[in-house]
């Protein structure tokens, strides 16, 4: 910041000094001693009077009471212009004799119409005016008018009649000097004029370029709506292009001063915006932000200067401030450009230099080191640079972006390729793992299948053993069962033998009555023999049935008879095994329970199993109680087994209940599992209930349920459907 301030002060001082080179403003005569190549502006020493009077063209008219005017400072005379806007200027010009030799030209530029009188005769007339005021303006574009210096003596009186365009506020006129006269060597004047003639073409060229650029940017924006900066540039360029055209059109022909003034103001502002825009772009590119200093500078240039101009008009202070601001801008741009170069951002660096060059050129013009024409040239170059810079900037940005995108695309492709490779690898790995697992599974399955086959084999063996065991249990019971009938067969046969002897004795004694009575006895006994014989026979038959492997054929079976038979079989079987074994049998057979389709051997096995369990349980309980009791008192426990059949709707219910040890709740649902037994090793295979369950549920489609309270009772309920 310090550097800027000191630099600015330095420039300011130079400017003020530059001012000193101008002529003394207080002298009444404009003394022209030497004529520099670029001519001298006849600005000071004029006298001015508002109004219109042809007498004022006379060189001898006394204008001593007229007010002083400085043509370069419109404020010195404009306010005095009256309603009509016509006024006269008079100047005493004294030219040195050395200057008279070479031809000299007058370059006039004005806003409005002008008539120049020398020695009472009209020398130059530009535009049209009448007594009422300005009719038509005419810009001479700096056309030189030959000014003969030796027109009657050393001192010449120049009288200018000027009709100004009306403008409110009047400072609008000050964009261009309303009246400006310059004395310049003829040759240079002609050259300047030629250059000036080219200027409009250059300007129009620039305008067209700007408009074209603007349209281009707007087109870009329509293609890439995301990049709003394109729209900004497009609109601005269009504006920039159209303004000068408008501006210079307004200068010709009928001048609407208000519009002209405002347009000039706008053009000026547009140029300022150009410069500040470049600053913003470059700052964002290089620093990534806009600094506070830059914000202040931009604010001053755009807002501050405009406000100052609108309120104060074109004043020396404003001009100075403007130059300072421009210098600061240029220096800031220089700083950023250097930084850009350091960042290897060459394009941005070059863009930044444009305004710098222009500022340099402006300064050089101010210091009168460069002709004004070349300044214009530099200005055009600057405009061109601006557009070029913007275009290059955007192009480079796009290039970078698309490079970035291409790069990203390549990256993505590369990563995708890597991904695919990895995926393939993974796939392979998974496949090989799968294969491995498959093989393992196959092996294990084979192993398991073997084990399963073995187990099934073992299981069938065990079932067979169970059946054999139950069969073994049966035989004892059956053997005993047979004994009773056989007993009767033998005894009654013996009795009959005796009775037959007695009958014969009676017959010998001719005791027919006795003989007949005896024969009745014999017959009765005979029936009993038959009965018991058949009983033995059926017992043997049923035993044979048990030993026969079950065919699974259902036959019409008397459930009551079956249950009763097996109850007794079980009972006697157990009593045969254990002499002390005893229990009370209570049967309650429902007579309405008839015959149902069942496999008698298998059902019988089930009933046998349940009865065996019941008897075993009550017997164990008795033993336990007897062991526990202290004295010889009777234990009061009556081992009892109940068998009841009930006829239900569509089913027959067989209930076997005992008041034995019962089954703990915990294992109640496990008792039907194969190999589950509460008996010690060797006393039961644990298959009985499991087999029974399968026979009842799977073979007969019935249900087998168990209820129990441990230590109190156990109850097994078989439900068989009548229609299987």
């Amino acid at each position, binding site marked *: 910041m310090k550097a800027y301030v000191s630099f600015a002060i330095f420039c300011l001082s130079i400017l003020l000094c530059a001012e000193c080179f101008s002529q003394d403003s207080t002298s009444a005569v404009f003394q022209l001693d030497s004529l520099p190549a670029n001519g001298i502006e006849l600005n000071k020493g004029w006298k001015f009077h508002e109004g219109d009077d042809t007498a004022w063209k006379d060189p001898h008219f006394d204008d001593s009471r007229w007010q002083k005017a400085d043509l370069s400072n419109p404020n010195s005379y404009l306010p005095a212009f009256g309603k009509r806007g016509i006024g006269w200027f008079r100047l005493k010009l004294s030219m040195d004799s050395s200057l008279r030799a070479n031809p000299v030209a007058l370059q006039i530029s004005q806003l409005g119409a002008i008539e120049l009188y020398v020695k009472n005769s009209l020398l130059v007339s530009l535009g049209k005016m009448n007594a009422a005021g300005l009719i038509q303006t005419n810009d001479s574009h700096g056309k030189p008018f030959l000014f003969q210096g030796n027109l009657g003596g050393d001192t010449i009186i120049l009288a200018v009649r000027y009709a100004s365009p009306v403008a409110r506020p009047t400072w609008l006129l000050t964009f261009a000097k309303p009246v400006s006269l310059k004395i310049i060597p003829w040759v240079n004047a002609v050259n300047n004029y030629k250059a000036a003639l080219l200027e409009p073409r250059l300007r129009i060229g620039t305008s067209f370029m700007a408009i074209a650029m603007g349209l281009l940017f707007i087109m870009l924006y329509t293609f890439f709506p995301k990049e709003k900066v394109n729209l900004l540039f497009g609109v601005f360029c269009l504006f920039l292009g159209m303004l000068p055209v408008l501006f210079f059109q307004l200068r010709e022909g009928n001048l609407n001063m208000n519009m002209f003034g405002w347009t000039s103001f706008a053009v000026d502002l547009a140029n300022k915006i150009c410069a500040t825009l470049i600053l913003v772009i470059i700052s964002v590119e290089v620093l990534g932000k806009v600094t506070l200093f830059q914000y202040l500078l931009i604010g001053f240039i755009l807002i501050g200067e405009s406000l100052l101009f609108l309120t104060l008009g074109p004043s020396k202070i404003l001009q100075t401030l403007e130059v300072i601001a421009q210098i600061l801008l240029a220096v800031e741009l220089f700083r950023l450009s250097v930084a850009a170069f350091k960042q290897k951002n060459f394009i941005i660096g070059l863009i930044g230099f444009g305004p710098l060059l222009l500022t340099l050129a402006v300064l050089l013009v101010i210091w009168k080191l460069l002709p004004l024409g070349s300044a214009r040239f530099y200005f055009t170059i600057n405009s061109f640079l601006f557009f070029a810079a913007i275009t290059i900037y955007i192009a480079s940005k796009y290039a970078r972006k698309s490079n970035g995108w291409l790069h990203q695309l390549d990256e993505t492709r590369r990563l995708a390729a890597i991904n695919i490779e990895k995926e393939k690898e993974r796939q392979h790995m998974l496949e090989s793992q799968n294969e491995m697992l498959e093989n393992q599974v196959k092996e294990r399955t084979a192993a398991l299948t073997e084990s399963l086959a073995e187990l099934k084999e073992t299981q069938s063996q065990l079932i067979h053993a169970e059946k054999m065991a139950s069969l073994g249990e049966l035989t004892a019971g059956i053997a005993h069962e047979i004994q*009773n009938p056989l007993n009767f067969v033998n005894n009654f046969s013996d009795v009959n033998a005796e009775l037959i002897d007695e009958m014969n004795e009676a017959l010998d004694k001719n005791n027919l009555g006795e003989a007949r009575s005896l024969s009745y006895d014999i017959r009765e006994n005979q029936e009993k023999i038959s009965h018991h014989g058949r009983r033995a026979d059926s017992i043997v038959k049923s035993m044979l049935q048990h030993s026969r492997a079950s065919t699974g054929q259902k036959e019409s079976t008397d459930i009551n008879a079956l249950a009763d038979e097996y109850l007794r079989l079980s009972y006697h079987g157990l009593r045969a095994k254990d*002499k*002390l074994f*005893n*229990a009370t049998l209570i049967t309650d057979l429902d007579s309405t329970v008839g015959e149902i389709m069942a496999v008698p051997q298998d059902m019988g096995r089930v009933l046998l199993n349940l009865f065996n369990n019941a008897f075993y349980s009550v017997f164990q309980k008795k033993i336990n109680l007897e062991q526990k009791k202290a004295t010889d008192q009777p234990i009061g426990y009556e081992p009892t087994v109940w068998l009841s059949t009930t006829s239900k709707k569509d089913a027959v219910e067989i209930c076997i209940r005992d008041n034995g040890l019962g089954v703990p709740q915990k294992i109640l649902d496990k008792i039907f599992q194969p190999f589950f037994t509460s008996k010690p090793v060797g006393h039961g295979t644990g298959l009985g209930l499991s087999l029974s369950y399968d026979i009842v549920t799977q073979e007969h489609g019935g249900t087998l349920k168990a209820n129990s309270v441990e230590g109190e009772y156990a109850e097994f309920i078989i439900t068989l459907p009548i229609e299987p």
Partner: protein
Amino acid sequence: MKILVVDDERDIQTLFEQRFRKEIRSGEMNFVFTYSGEEALTYLTQHVSEAVLILSDINMPGMNGFELLKQIKAKFESPPPIVMMITAYGDSENYKLAMSLGADDFLTKPLDFSLLKEKLKHITHDQDPGS
């Protein structure tokens, strides 16, 4: 002599009646048949000291012979009736048990009635030397 026969087989009655035809006719013996241990006890309670001899099967549903034996020996002491066990289980274990419970004799099925008659003769002579 009154003899109480306890056996769950009903045909036992017919057999005894046939076999002891003469003795029944002569009034030498008088048979009462009950078909369970409980029935027997009931009878004995109702007809105290009437039966001098009790022939009981061992294998019976409900109260078996041994139980009955115990009960008789416990409840009917004066005079204690003679109790003979009749059973199909003729092994030594059963015999020992019967004896230990106080049975007077032990017979096996099928009944040898001649042997039985012999034993009964001895009893009648023992019981009633006069008759």
